[in-house]
């Protein structure tokens, strides 16, 4: 029999015992709804977690710091290291003047990016800390698929508002955070431009400033901070000799001094930098309830958020400035960490390796993400299993309905066979009826499941609203899930129809025609 005729006959048969078939279909719908509701909860929670983590910039970000040196302050380690040539050299980067100085005469080779020939020089170069400065930032920014590279800017400050001082932390926020989701549901708006003299306050800090935090939007606050101003070197003669990779005008580092003289000469250290109190007026444009400046790239919490570009221009003294003084790098500013944002999470691993090869420490939370996905996969599987149980029970309804149909339509099956229907035709007819019930039940079930999910979202958000928390979506029914659930319902229904269809096909036509 042709598929069109089969479908038509199956639909006609289903319409015949409308109530019973409707109830069976409803049973399947309830089963599918249970499955969809369970899975939608799992998927919704996973999406929520992903979104939150994405908001924190954990998926597509690499956090770069200076190379870790457990001896501290760039001193060379024991000379027994047998590791391959320094990563900096391998990537063709200039491993800085300090390496040249400490390796004692190997400067030209190092500067040319050649592989050092001796084990000792290799170990020294590897252990030498490469400064995480603007040059490094530019080099990292040139890596493939890098979206942006920005330093962590976070400093202590005093905010003046309404004549009262408040100590807090300021954090620079890149403009890309605008679409990251971290500022979803904020009151007010994001910065009007990447250079705006504007601030977004974290809700806890805003509550310190005013009992009515929302009223702060549009108000002006004064930011008081310590500006770092480098002091020009007083001993030009202490510059590195010609041929060294060190740039003229730059101060020698501690390791340079050690490498050249055997020990650091306190008199040859950088004079440090001046700290000048400054203040800046900012307009509050928004209040945020989350903590966008928290996370792996910013271990402390920024309570006052300002655009990254003006934050950099402030040149505010930060915690790592002290380290720079001790390392004799007060002339050129270095960064405590850089955040490298990739175009997509898949680009993270390659870039992370490349950055490590440059001689910096780099880490991402890619592995943690993988584990999280694994946890959610198990969670989804369990939810799906429980949701499927109802569908399995519903499949018993299909078997019952079709077996009843065989009894009722025994004579009809006999007539069909007498008119030329093969066993296969009869089997296909019952299969089609089972499949149709599965399809209808599946579609209806997805709709009910979606309604349940929408109800869960609605209820959750009412509760969150009462707790003064932003809205979330705990349940999500993506298209693939709807398709999968309908397909599963049809599949289960066809399996349930196996026995009745086979029984109908094997019916003896002579006996069936005698049946009253």
């Amino acid at each position, binding site marked *: *029999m*042709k598929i069109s*005729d089969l479908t038509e*006959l199956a639909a*006609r048969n289903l319409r*015949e015992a409308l109530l019973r078939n409707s109830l069976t279909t409803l049973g399947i719908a309830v089963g599918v709804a249970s499955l969809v509701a369970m899975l939608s909860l799992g998927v919704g929670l996973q999406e929520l977690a992903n979104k939150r983590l994405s908001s924190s910039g954990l998926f597509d970000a690499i956090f770069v710091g200076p190379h870790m040196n457990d001896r501290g302050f760039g001193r060379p380690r024991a000379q027994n290291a047998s590791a391959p040539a320094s990563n900096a050299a391998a990537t063709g980067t200039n491993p800085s003047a300090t390496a040249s100085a400490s390796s004692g005469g190997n400067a030209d080779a190092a500067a040319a990016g050649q592989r050092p020939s001796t084990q000792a020089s290799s170990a020294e170069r590897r252990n030498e800390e490469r400064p995480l400065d603007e040059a490094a930032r530019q080099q990292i920014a040139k890596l493939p698929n890098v979206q942006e590279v920005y330093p962590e800017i976070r400093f202590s400050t005093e905010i003046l508002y309404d004549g009262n001082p408040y100590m807090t932390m300021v954090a620079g926020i890149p403009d890309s955070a605008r679409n990251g989701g971290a500022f979803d549901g904020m009151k007010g708006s994001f910065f009007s431009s990447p250079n705006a003299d504007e601030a977004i306050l974290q809700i806890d800090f805003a509550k310190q400033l005013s009992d009515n935090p929302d009223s702060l939007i549009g108000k002006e606050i004064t930011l008081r901070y310590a500006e770092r101003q480098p002091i020009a070197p007083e001993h030009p003669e202490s510059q590195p000799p010609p041929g060294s990779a060190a740039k003229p005008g730059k101060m020698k580092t501690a390791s340079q001094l050690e490498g050249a003289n055997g020990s650091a000469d306190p008199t040859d250290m950088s004079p440090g930098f001046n700290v000048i109190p400054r203040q800046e007026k900012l307009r509050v444009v928004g209040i945020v309830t989350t903590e966008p400046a928290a996370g792996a790239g910013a271990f402390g919490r920024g309570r006052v958020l300002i655009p990254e570009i003006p934050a950099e221009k402030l040149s505010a003294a930060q915690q790592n400035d002290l380290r720079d003084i001790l390392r004799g790098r007060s002339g050129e500013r270095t960064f405590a960490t850089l955040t490298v944002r990739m175009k997509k999470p898949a680009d993270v691993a390659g870039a992370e390796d490349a950055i490590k090869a440059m001689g910096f420490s780099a880490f991402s939370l890619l592995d943690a993400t993988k584990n999280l996905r694994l946890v959610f996969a198990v969670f989804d599987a369990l939810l799906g299993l429980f949701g499927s149980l109802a569908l399995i029970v519903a499949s018993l309804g299909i078997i019952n309905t079709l077996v009843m149909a065989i009894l009722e339509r025994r*004579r*009809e099956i*006999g*007539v*069909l*066979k*007498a*008119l*030329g*229907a*093969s*066993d*296969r*035709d009869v089997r296909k007819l019952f299969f089609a009826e089972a499949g149709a019930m599965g399809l209808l039940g599946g579609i209806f079930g997805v709709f009910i499941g979606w309604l349940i999910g929408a109800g869960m979202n609605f209820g959750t958000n009412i509760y969150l609203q009462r707790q003064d928390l932003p809205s979330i979506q705990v349940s999500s029914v993506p298209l693939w899930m709807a398709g999968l659930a309908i397909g599963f319902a049809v599949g289960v229904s066809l399996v349930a129809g196996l026995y009745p269809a086979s029984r109908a096909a094997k019916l003896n*036509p*002579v006996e069936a*025609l005698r049946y009253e």
Partner: protein
Amino acid sequence: MNSSEGLKTNSANGFAIRTDSVSRHYHMGGALVRAVDGVSFEIRKAEFVALLGSSGSGKSTLLNLMAGLDRPTSGAIFAHDRNLAGMTADELANHRSHTIGMVFQAFNLLPRMTLEENVELPLRLAEVDRKERATRVREAIARVHLEARLTHRPTEMSGGEQQRAALARALVNRPTILLADEPTGNLDSATGDEIMLLLREINETLGMTIVMVTHERPRAERFAHRLLQMKDGKLISDGAPA
């Protein structure tokens, strides 16, 4: 006998149906029932044969064997020189679809379908094109004079009309053999005669072989070319009506 034997051509050509010591035995409550027991006969093409006998004589079982609804326990049964005993289930279904048309005492129309849909059913099973179906359905219904009842359901028709509808359904696939199992059994005398006249007309105009099971000897003698009498599963007489 395997399926390939079913495709073999019988040497005895010119017969629509030929049985060769065909038997159908089955067990019922421990007893062996010889429903059909070593029956042999030939039915020529375009012959109108009445199969007579009392209840339980085996005539309906023999008809079912000819239809390919049942398989013989032993012997052979040929329809147009093809042995039904050796056919596969699918081949038998094909035989029922294309070679045989069946009419039953209880009409066996599907109650939820209209006359038109009931008549169309064998065409669906035979996978005839939808366009051709409509033509064939109209032709078959016109032959039994039920054009005015196209959209009526069986419950909306009289017994005679239902049997005519069943006849139209049996004819729609243009079979060469029409098997009728007590076609007038549920009808009054006048309506029964109408059906018999219709069968005769079909036999004469279409040259269709008709085998009719009946226990009404007078009617059989009036319409059939030949009478086969059965008793206790055996063929006890074979001859022209008196």
